[in-house]
């Protein structure tokens, strides 16, 4: 118990110095927690939006289709069979499933034309899987078998459409012939998923299939599971059961780009943390050197009285750990307060974008809230502590190796 007591006493000799050095570490932790919290919030909301509005927890589709899915092709579609549906129904943790058909549409308002994505939905089953209905701001969902369509309020605004208007949808069938659907707009939605609002039109599945001359083919099944994690585990259960070209894809594989972007963001956060902590490390080195210089005579005396070099090194490392601890605790408290303020007010995505409509590719709009994670608190706290101790080793060795006689003779 002798060394720890010595460490604590030494730390309290220069309270101000200890405090401001700890402050650097505290700032590093604060910045990390804030950025990480914001990113976590953004991630969480992004995935929630993608799952609830775009990809569901799990998709079953032809693997050749999946590779080209962004181009909305009409080949490699799948024909629903009882067998596939029985397999889907047998999946553990399934809540609901639906069929969808994605196709490419040129939406025409009589003057201008805009390429958008058309999605054929099963009006009976779709609401059990997707949240679209909750985001309707006016009108209603299309009814099965009708030529009714719904679209984002922003898209309607751009094309001067109102509820009750007819949107002419120019499509190309699987046989390369052109066809049109006169869709009556019966509902407008405003979802938190920007690309859905800007460029997607929903139409009853049977109408889409008939107009595209596709029989009962669909592009994919979408499954909703009891919870998100199930979507990933169910892929492994489903894949061996499905016949070859068909595959199951979880929400993670359908949002590869987003995941890549988040990883990149993660690296950037780490770089910021590393920069601030490097400055903190220099601060720690400086503090240890300063206290060693100040205590030269004391150290000489201790060594003369039989204290070993190792113990002196431990004292200084202990002091650095103390500073790291103080800084860490300050940083965690500051970070928690900061996150609390974040979450109390929320951040409007448009302020981050300078009032514009830019979302940096994140499928998020409106107000976002930061996420909390004990793991990131623990990580950054131990990281700060580790860096403090590591930084102190060399100056501590330097101090401990001083010759006792010279040290006492310091002045």
């Amino acid at each position, binding site marked *: 118990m002798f060394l720890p007591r010595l460490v604590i006493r030494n730390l309290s000799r220069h309270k101000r110095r200890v405090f401001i050095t700890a*402050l650097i570490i505290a700032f590093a932790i604060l910045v990390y927690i804030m950025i990480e919290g914001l990113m976590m919030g953004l991630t969480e909301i992004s995935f929630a939006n993608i799952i609830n509005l775009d990809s569901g927890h799990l998709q079953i589709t032809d693997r050749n289709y999946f590779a080209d899915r962004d181009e909305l092709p009409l080949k490699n579609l799948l024909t629903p069979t009882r067998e596939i549906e029985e397999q889907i129904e047998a999946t553990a943790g399934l809540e609901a499933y639906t069929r969808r058909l994605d196709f490419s549409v040129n939406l025409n308002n*009589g*003057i201008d034309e805009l390429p958008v994505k058309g999605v054929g939905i099963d009006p009976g089953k779709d609401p059990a899987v997707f949240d679209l209905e909750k985001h309707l701001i006016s009108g209603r969902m299309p009814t099965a078998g009708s030529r009714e369509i719904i679209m984002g309020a922003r898209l309607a605004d751009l094309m001067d459409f109102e509820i009750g208007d007819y949107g002419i949808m120019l499509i190309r069938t699987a046989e390369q012939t052109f066809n049109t659907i006169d869709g009556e707009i019966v509902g407008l939605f405003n979802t938190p998923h920007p690309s859905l609002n800007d460029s997607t039109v929903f139409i009853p599945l049977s109408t889409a299939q008939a107009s595209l001359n596709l029989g009962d083919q669909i592009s994919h099944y979408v499954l909703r599971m009891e919870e998100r994690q199930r979507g990933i585990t169910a892929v492994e259960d489903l894949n061996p059961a499905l016949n070859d070209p068909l595959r199951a894809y979880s929400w993670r594989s359908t949002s590869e780009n987003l995941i890549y972007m988040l990883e990149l963001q993660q690296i950037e956060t780490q770089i910021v943390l590393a920069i601030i902590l490097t400055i903190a490390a220099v601060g720690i080195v400086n*503090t240890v050197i*300063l206290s060693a210089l100040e205590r030269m005579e004391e150290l000489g005396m201790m060594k003369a009285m039989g204290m070993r070099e190792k113990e002196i090194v431990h004292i200084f490392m202990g002091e650095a750990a103390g500073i790291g601890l103080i800084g860490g605790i300050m940083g965690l408290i500051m970070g928690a307060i900061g996150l609390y303020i974040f979450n109390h007010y929320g951040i409007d995505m448009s302020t981050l974008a300078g009032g*514009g409509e*830019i979302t940096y590719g994140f499928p998020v709009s409106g107000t976002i809230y930061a996420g909390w994670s004990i793991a990131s608190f623990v990580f950054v706290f131990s990281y700060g502590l580790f860096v403090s101790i590591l930084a102190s080793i060399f100056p501590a060795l330097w101090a401990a190796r001083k010759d006792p006689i010279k040290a006492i003779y310091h002045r």
Partner: protein
Amino acid sequence: MKFLINIALKNMFRNKLRTFVSVLAIAFAVIVIVFARGLIDGMIESSYSMYIHYDTGHIKIMDQEYEQKQRLLSLAYTVDGIANKSLSEMENELLKLEGIEMVIPRVKFGAAVSTEEELVQMMAWGVDGQKELKFTNLERELVEGRMVSSGNREVVMGTELLRRIDKNVGERVTMVFNTAYSSFQGATFDIVGRIESNLPLLNKDLVFMPIDTARHLLYLEEESTELLLVTDDRDKAINYLPAVKNYLSANEGERYLAQEWREGSSFIQLLQVGERIYNFIYIFLLLLASIVVINTMVMIVNERTQEIGMMSALGLKKKDILKLFILEGGAMAVIGSFIGSIAGGTLTYFLSDIGINYGTAIEDMDILMTTIIYPNFKLEHLIFGFSLGIVITSLTAIIPAYRAANMDPTEALRDI
């Protein structure tokens, strides 16, 4: 003063290790600042020039209605002359205005190519090939073939777009589009060039064709969807804007909108806010680094309490003691900032050739930014980091120096 400088320098060398660590802290912060500034400058510069080249020009003239509907690529709201003058007369008159060096007409419309499997959507631009080459960086990106020349039915496309429609330079392609009268038509073009660019827009969405061909096919003779004005200096564009606006309103051109490049995109405005925010981040970083210097200085002051007492007893004024310590802190700041700016500059210089690849992360964003960002090496950034380092560190050195200066000589002398 010379005397004080001498003492300050001599004092610095009393404990070299201590000085070295403080200098190191400042140097590191300055390295980060110089490099970060270079990187951000590189990013912002490239975004600005992308927006200017492929969206806004220095000043953009278009129909008021068109501004809201740019995404639609509508042909219903065109620039088709002013008062009773035709478009080419209007262009000539604009060219006579002060500072305007070039008037670039563009006709933008939506087109599609039908392949066996799908209908590939693209954005077609009717352009004046020579003017585009002069104004944009297309020449460097045109990796195969040549730019379109007027009068011919020919197109230049991006590499990714060519891959999607499965064609090569030298082959022919049939495109379908809607004319200004909303009739659906098709035309066949020779592919005469291929563009390979870091900018996703150029690589996978755009197809260039001669403007007269586009006008002819769309029934838009003497019309453009927009006019881009190029001035002699983009920073002066804001000064030339009033003359352009005057010209428009003097010729009954109220339906036209003249926009400076900065207003054209919310992303540019965002970058400008970002630039300012980053300057605060730099200051914050240096403040953290100068904590190390403050620590050192506090210790120095403590160590030399007796010395200070003696000096003030011998007649050195408070002001001089203050100066002495600020000079000592300042000297550390100068050395640290110098080393930092040189090292940061070297780092930026090397990376400015290699670039930092953001890969596909940017492709999905609805902004014009290249996927590889080249930090911009400029002496300006070195000087910025150097001066900011000196100013901030010297300012923070005032705190301990003030403490030293305010010591009572009798008390200080007695301190052991």
